[in-house]
């Protein structure tokens, strides 16, 4: 007797199916993907050079030559936004990656080892929570200049705390799950258990939180830009472009509208994607 072997669908596949039914989240995914590709390709596909200015031209509204208009230097806005996107997305992704790395490790170790070490590590997190980080970031930026690397570290240092808490909570509850106990009773080594049974099951919330951290990091960068502490010109970021745009929004509205729309779209997309992922990865939300 032969039975046809049925291919099962994993929770990931399940999540994907759920996600693909959520049009908003899918839209978010597409936008993010598109933006990432554009950013990578910017140096080759940008219509103009980055610092190419035309002082005589000045600020012009959108035209067939400059699709999104030009800024007061006569620089092409489309090009500026594309390059700004590279910076903004890099800040978003790298700072989040820093937060992710520290947060996941810290939380996983604290949650899995438990006991005194856990208490100590979490106390440190509590203490860090009470530090006025916004103030420190401002101070750091003032003191050490507008260093993009420092920006990553500073933002990453703020955001990892929540990540660590989330991961710790996950690991703690996983540690008590019967399947982990079953793995113990099979005699699997600690490392095998962490690798095969714990980490794959913490990924859901971590991914969700990551997609929600990226927009908040990008906003933080924009906020620093407003204080004149963000990215250093001539590099630019969406935050910086918006900040310039705000100042001239009555005279040259397109300088605000286009970067504003781009940033908002990105933040929307990331939020939609994050929400969608949260629903998709939540086993309590059924497929239907």
């Amino acid at each position, binding site marked *: 007797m032969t039975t046809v072997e049925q291919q099962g669908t994993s929770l990931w596949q399940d999540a994907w199916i759920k996600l693909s039914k959520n049009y908003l989240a899918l839209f978010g995914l597409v936008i993010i993907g598109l933006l990432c590709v554009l950013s990578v390709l910017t140096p080759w596909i940008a219509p103009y050079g980055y*610092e190419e*200015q035309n*002082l*005589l031209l*000045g*600020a012009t509204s959108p035209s067939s030559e400059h699709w999104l208009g030009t800024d*007061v*230097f006569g620089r092409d806005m489309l090009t500026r936004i594309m390059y700004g996107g590279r910076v903004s997305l890099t800040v978003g992704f790298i700072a989040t990656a820093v937060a992710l790395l520290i947060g996941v490790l810290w939380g996983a170790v604290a949650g899995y080892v438990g006991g005194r070490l856990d208490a100590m590590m979490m106390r440190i997190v509590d203490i860090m929570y009470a530090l006025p980080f916004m103030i420190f970031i401002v101070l750091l930026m*003032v003191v050490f*200049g*507008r260093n993009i690397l420092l920006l990553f570290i500073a933002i990453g240092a703020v955001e990892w705390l929540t990540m660590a808490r989330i991961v710790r909570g996950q690991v703690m509850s996983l540690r008590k799950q019967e399947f982990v106990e079953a793995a113990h009773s099979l005699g699997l080594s600690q490392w095998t258990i962490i690798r095969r049974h714990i980490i794959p099951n913490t990924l859901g919330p971590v991914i969700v939180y990551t997609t929600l951290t990226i927009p908040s990091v990008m906003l933080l960068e924009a906020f620093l830009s407003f204080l*004149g502490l963000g990215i*250093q*010109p*001539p590099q630019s970021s969406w935050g910086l472009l918006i900040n*310039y745009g*705000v*100042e*001239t929004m*009555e*005279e*040259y509205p397109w300088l605000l509208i286009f970067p504003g729309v781009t940033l908002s779209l990105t933040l929307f997309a990331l939020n939609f994607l994050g929400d969608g992922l949260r629903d998709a990865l939540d086993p309590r939300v059924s497929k239907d």
Partner: protein
Amino acid sequence: MKNCARLPLLFSLFLLMPTLLLSACGGGENNVDQGNRDGTLHWGNGTEPQSLDPHIATGVPEHNIITALMEGLVAKDSKTLAPKAGVAEYWTISEDGRVYTFKLRENARWSNGDPHNAHDYVWSWWRALQPALGNLYAYMYFSIDNAKEYYEGTITDFDQVGIKALDDFTLQVTLSNPTPYFLQLLDHYSLYPVHRGTVEKFGTADERGTRWTYEGNHVGNGAFQLSAWKINRRITVQRNPFYWNADHVGLNQIVFYPTENAVSEERMFRAGQLHRTSSVPSDKIPSYLETQNSSLRISPYLGTYFYRINTSVPHLQSKLVRRALALTIDREAITKNILKGGQIPAYAFTPPGTMGYYPESNLRFDPETARQLLAEAGYLNGKDFPTTEILYNTNESHRKIAVAIQQMWKKHLNIDIKLLNQEWKVYLDSESIGNYEISRAAWIGDYVDPNNFLDMFLCNGGNNRTGWCNAEYDYLIGDIAPTVKTHAERLAVFGRAEKLLMDELPVIPIYTYTSISLVNQAVKNYPSNILNKANYSEIYLQAEPQQMPLTEDQY
């Protein structure tokens, strides 16, 4: 558990709150209309003043307020800036131009009613020369005989300094050299008198930062007296009834606002919250010009925007290189397309027209010659020219100019320029220790005289900072200029020195500043001048009878 029962109520309150918040807002008359009626001038002042002590303060916002609260021996005509009687009713100058004798008004009073006399000046100026006070403008006194020596401690007896009260209302000042601009200095707040009783009430004479300048404590001798100082919010001054000319003061009150953000300030002006702004965002200027908005006021300002060149950097030691750089800056393009505020391209260091002084210059925009000069210096077509850094303090407009110049030099000389911005304090540090190659800088005149600009570049000048040192220049400015007899001779000496400076080019002048602000039509008798100095005692407010001329025209 009674609180449970109240929760629904609380909840409905929650829903009501936004409505309440919105209904709380009321319209009402704006500042300007109200001010026009009751004689209150609303003045956008840039930033919160650090101090209102005339011997400690530096900076324009402080200047604006102190000149309302105090008056010097001599005042200036608000249009021509010619010296006119202030606290001193009249004065005489000795033949050799070294001894000034001032006759003080006998009806001058401090704002608390105390008599105001020559001894106040002796004491005040003694105070201003105490090093512990940290007076950054002490050098304004240095034309007075022995003042510098006293300040630096080589003389300890103040009696040897050329300041004497001959009687209660006669003050005699002896200068070390005839100084034609001395009368002007007397209108600078660093030479204003302070009220001894008040200063000593709140601390010792040379104690920095006592509370004597605070709301309720301050005593001055100007047209207005301090009535309120709300930190970072506003400073209010009121008509001073003891002012000798109080009858002719047109305003009842002036409110100074620390309007730090130029964009917000401009919006405040448009919303009728200010009579006058301290600046106008450069991106807004074109639209004001286009609509011929009469509120916009642009006038020349005694200040030069320039680049310092660090002459100790090997490849910048060459005069030829510096000249090549100076010749390839298209100043017209910068002022027209970037700054847009009527700034004047500068081809010499001293702003033209300073006390009738028009410096000659052989600077111009001439890329052709520049390329030749650069080749002469050994960098044919920019070859092997080291990448050079322009340092500027973090600011959008400095950046714009730096970017433009970077491109001009690249385009015409084919040399690579890097931009480096530093935050203000860091930039100051770098510049003062000579840790830069080319650095953006500016100099705003304290008094209207070429000397104020040209003595910067003496070998040991604290503001030189370029490493440039020229014996002939030092001789001309330091030794000849103070001793020449006539104004014309003097200007000629300055002309020679300036020519030398523009030949050597340790600094590359870029443009002469303009003061740009928005002024409400109701502000009368407020002419513009090269120092951008307001004479508040003369200003008055008169609302235009027809508020909307456009609609009037349509009829």
